[in-house]
């Protein structure tokens, strides 16, 4: 479509009704063409002015200890090698510091030095970077580096971790522990009880784009091309680590090949590229290998969770206990907020949640899609299913009976404030109808098709709704093109597209006249993509900027010759503290379990969600479906195995770490409940990037129980955990 040529503000401001026209439409992705033609450039692929040198990372082959000697002579002499950087010659950087930062926010921006000293804190920690004229030269030379270590005994076995400790807070600054009433006594006296311990495995994000960066210096200023969810984090971290002013760092990230939480902070690839490029005075690109990503690009901690539910005979919960012990690193703390959602999900007078940590000699765990809810709901929503089974009550009915409700108001049981909106019951009812829940057999193991057992399960979903401070600029060019500029990212979420829709609606312009420019730290700063806050935060800032621009236009006869621009912003409103904001959902799954092999196939899943206004049903559905499939992965296959002897993540590639493939996924249906949450933001929308995974795995696990009568509490539910117990 040709750009619309606008000369009078009539054309822009003719309709100022509140109705949205573009928002809510299933607009195709704006960046679709770039992605399907291969034109979209990701971190490693940017073209820089000088010829780029190639860096290759060498990782430590012990899990804890010290480098005694490192012989890089052969590597240094190897043809095509420009630089071998080790702890002996790496430029000085800021110190890493204490395991915890003063504020939760600083964990994203703290210095993260590389090759700082001889200490090895985890297996495959980078110990050298070889830079060559070619990738082949650098890789070959890295293989010739000889390292001698002094090995210390590391802690790599969670089961043996005797000393657990209580962290000051959980991730995102939540309280470590909460309690209400008198849990111990109430639970002891409850007529019907579930007391079960569940474990979840280490998991690895594995975005398809490996972590990579190109660094290029011009004088004292560096430009980093990388794939990141949040440019401001990378910028601050690079500046802090290299001890240079924030203004000297520019980060560019227009396309990101998936993040899922693993691209929230700067990792070693970025810092190594920046250091080497400075030393060589020439651009350097560094990519982690897929194998290196397992130790160096984040993982989800493992967890051991005790869930205790006490109910009366009608299924009314009296006591809810969710106590979590998860892994952390010795040198840097990460407390996944696994028990936090439990505080808001169901009502009971007597409640307790606790988080404890066990220190291991691994790298630090990181935020992996729905940190907290993803592992936590596997446990709690399985336990709810166990309780429903014990009560011989329908799992949906059990949940309905435990809706937090006071005199008709939906109150957050922990915070005592109302929910901004809470349509869990509607999600369950609508989902049940569409799924055909009534055809489920309450008795496990009752449906057989040949040598297959068929089962159905459901689980609830809850996920907090966030908004983060963000700014945006809009520039209306004389010829009528609107440029929307902010340092936001599109990690596959559809940001380019929804921001186009938002600007189109406020400005009353056709989407084809709008050009959204993202992924450059020179543009106004946003909260980036993470925690499902991207659309609300960046979208509100764009909305505000457009609204201001439109107001300016009203006082003008037309667009001035030099164009016109406006800035907008958003911060958390007072509503944010007055209301408990969450999105809700209900998952349903049908599985078939093979009696001879215990192979579990997810035949179909259905998810019903209440997530406020849906900005673009097409991209929203894709995100939700992606999340639900992550639920299949967590329930049935995903686990990163830690070698108890050496501390290596041993299945560190895509052949051994199983993520769902196309053939693992059957029919997936989704439905969004009509909802507008006016307290959430100007659109009435809520985050959806993580909602899809919350509870999805539990629905699958509950379906496996319903199919077989076997309750596996150790995730993922792999064949060997079922096979010995299957009937003949």
């Amino acid at each position: 479509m040709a750009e619309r040529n606008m000369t009078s503000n009539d054309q822009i401001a003719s309709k100022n009704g509140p109705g949205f026209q573009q928002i809510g439409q299933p607009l195709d992705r704006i960046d679709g063409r770039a992605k399907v033609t291969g034109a979209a450039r990701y971190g490693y692929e940017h073209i820089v002015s000088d010829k780029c040198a190639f860096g290759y990372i060498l990782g430590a082959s012990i899990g804890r200890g010290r480098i005694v000697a490192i012989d890089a002579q052969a590597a240094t002499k190897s043809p095509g090698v420009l630089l071998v950087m080790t702890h002996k010659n790496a430029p000085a950087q800021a110190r890493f510091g204490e395991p915890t930062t003063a504020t939760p926010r600083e964990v994203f921006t703290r210095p993260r030095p590389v090759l700082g000293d001889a200490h090895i804190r985890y297996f495959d920690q980078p110990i050298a970077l070889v830079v060559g004229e070619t990738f082949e030269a650098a890789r070959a030379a890295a293989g010739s580096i000889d390292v001698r270590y002094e090995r210390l005994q590391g802690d790599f076995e969670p089961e043996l971790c005797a000393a657990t400790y209580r962290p000051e807070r959980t991730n995102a600054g939540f309280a470590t522990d909460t309690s209400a009433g008198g849990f111990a006594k109430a639970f002891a006296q409850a007529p019907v009880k579930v007391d079960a311990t569940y474990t979840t495995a280490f998991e690895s994000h594995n975005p398809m784009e490996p972590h990579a960066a190109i660094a290029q210096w011009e004088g004292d200023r560096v430009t980093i091309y990388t794939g990141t969810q949040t440019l401001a984090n990378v910028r601050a971290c690079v500046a802090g680590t290299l001890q240079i002013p924030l203004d000297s760092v520019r980060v560019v990230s227009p396309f990101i090949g998936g993040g899922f939480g693993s691209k929230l902070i700067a990792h070693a690839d970025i810092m190594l590229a920046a250091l080497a490029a400075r030393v060589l005075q020439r651009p350097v690109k560094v990519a982690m290998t897929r194998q290196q990503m397992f130790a160096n690009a984040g993982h989800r901690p493992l967890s051991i969770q005790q869930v205790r539910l006490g109910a009366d005979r009608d299924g009314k919960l009296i006591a809810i206990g969710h106590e979590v012990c998860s892994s952390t690193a010795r040198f840097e703390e990460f407390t996944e907020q696994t028990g936090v959602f439990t505080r808001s999900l169901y009502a009971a007078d007597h409640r307790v949640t606790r988080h404890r940590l066990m220190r291991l000699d691994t790298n630090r765990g990181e935020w992996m899609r729905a940190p907290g809810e993803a592992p936590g709901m596997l446990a709690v929503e399985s336990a709810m299913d166990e309780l429903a089974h014990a009560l011989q009550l329908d799992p949906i009915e059990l949940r309905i009976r435990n809706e937090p409700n006071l005199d008709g108001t939906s109150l957050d049981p922990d915070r005592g404030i109302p929910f901004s909106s809470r349509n869990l019951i509607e999600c369950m009812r609508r989902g049940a109808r569409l799924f055909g829940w009534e055809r489920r057999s309450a008795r496990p193991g009752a449906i057989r098709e040949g040598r297959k057992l068929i089962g159905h399960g459901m689980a609830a979903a809850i996920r907090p709704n966030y908004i983060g401070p963000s700014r945006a600029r809009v520039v209306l060019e004389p010829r009528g093109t609107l440029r929307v500029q902010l340092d936001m990212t599109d990690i596959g979420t559809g940001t380019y597209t929804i921001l186009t829709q938002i600007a189109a609606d406020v400005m009353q312009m056709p989407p084809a006249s709008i050009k959204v420019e993202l992924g450059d730290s020179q543009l106004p700063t946003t909260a980036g993509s993470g925690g499902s806050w991207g659309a609300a935060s960046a979208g509100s800032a764009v909305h505000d900027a457009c609204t201001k621009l439109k107001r300016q236009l009203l006082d003008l006869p037309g667009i001035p010759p030099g164009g016109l621009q406006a800035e907008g912003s958003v911060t958390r409103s007072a509503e944010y503290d007055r209301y408990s904001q969450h999105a809700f959902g209900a998952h349903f799954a049908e599985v078939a379990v093979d009696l001879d092999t215990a192979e579990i196939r997810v035949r179909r899943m259905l998810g019903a969600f209440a997530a406020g206004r849906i900005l673009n049903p097409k991209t929203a559905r894709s995100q939700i479906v992606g999340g639900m499939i992550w639920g299949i992965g967590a329930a049935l296959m995903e686990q990163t195995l830690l070698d108890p002897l050496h501390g290596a993540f041993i299945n560190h590639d895509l052949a051994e770490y199983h993520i769902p493939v196309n053939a693992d996924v059957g029919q997936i249906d989704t439905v969004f409940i009509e909802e507008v949450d006016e307290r959430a933001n100007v659109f009435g929308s809520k985050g959806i990037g993580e909602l899809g995974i919350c509870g999805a795995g539990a629905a699958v696990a509950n379906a496996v129980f319903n199919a077989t009568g076997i309750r596996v509490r150790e995730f993922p539910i792999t064949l060997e955990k079922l096979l010995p117990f299957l009937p003949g």
Partner: protein
Amino acid sequence: MSEQDDNALLTRRALLEGSAASALLLTTGMPLRSEAAAADEVSFAVHTNVVTLRINAHDSTLNLDSRTTLLDVLRHQLGLTGVKKGCDHGQCGACTVLVNGRRINACLTLAVMHENDEITTIEGLASGERLHPLQSAFIAHDGFQCGYCTPGQICSAAGMLEEARRGWPSHATHNLCAANIPLTDEEIRERMSGNLCRCAAYPNIVKAIAAAAHEARQ
């Protein structure tokens, strides 16, 4: 002896480039390439070959380090970065390209093995501005999110549709002897399972491929 000559060249060039950086050597003690280091390089001889690759109907003659994979030549030397590296081990399919019409993982093959082969990458699928039907279908059905696996998915789908057309059975095929194998969703899922998508756009990938296949049959 051409390899040795190349090495000698490389060394001289590297030294020249290194001289600008040698000031840094004094201050940081970096083991940059130095003259002393150049002496015993012979044992590291790099083997190079002059190869002509025909990519997207265009010939490129390159002097290639024989260790270079087809994937790295495409991405590093020829600027065809639509071809993606997800694992470098044949485990993800992100690097899928068509060689003589068949889909292969470009990371699992050395570039020097492909003289005289007809190589098609994602950049060569569209006809000018007109997208390949699979490309349009992926957009229409939202068959991707981050887009990183997408070029591989689309090239793989192009190769797969041809395999199915020729009657090659898959693990999901019920009748191995059938002259015509119906391209059911199950068949597509099975045949596309070598292409991982962490965004998990699978249901839409299946829809997009089914739609493009349907269109092709019309």
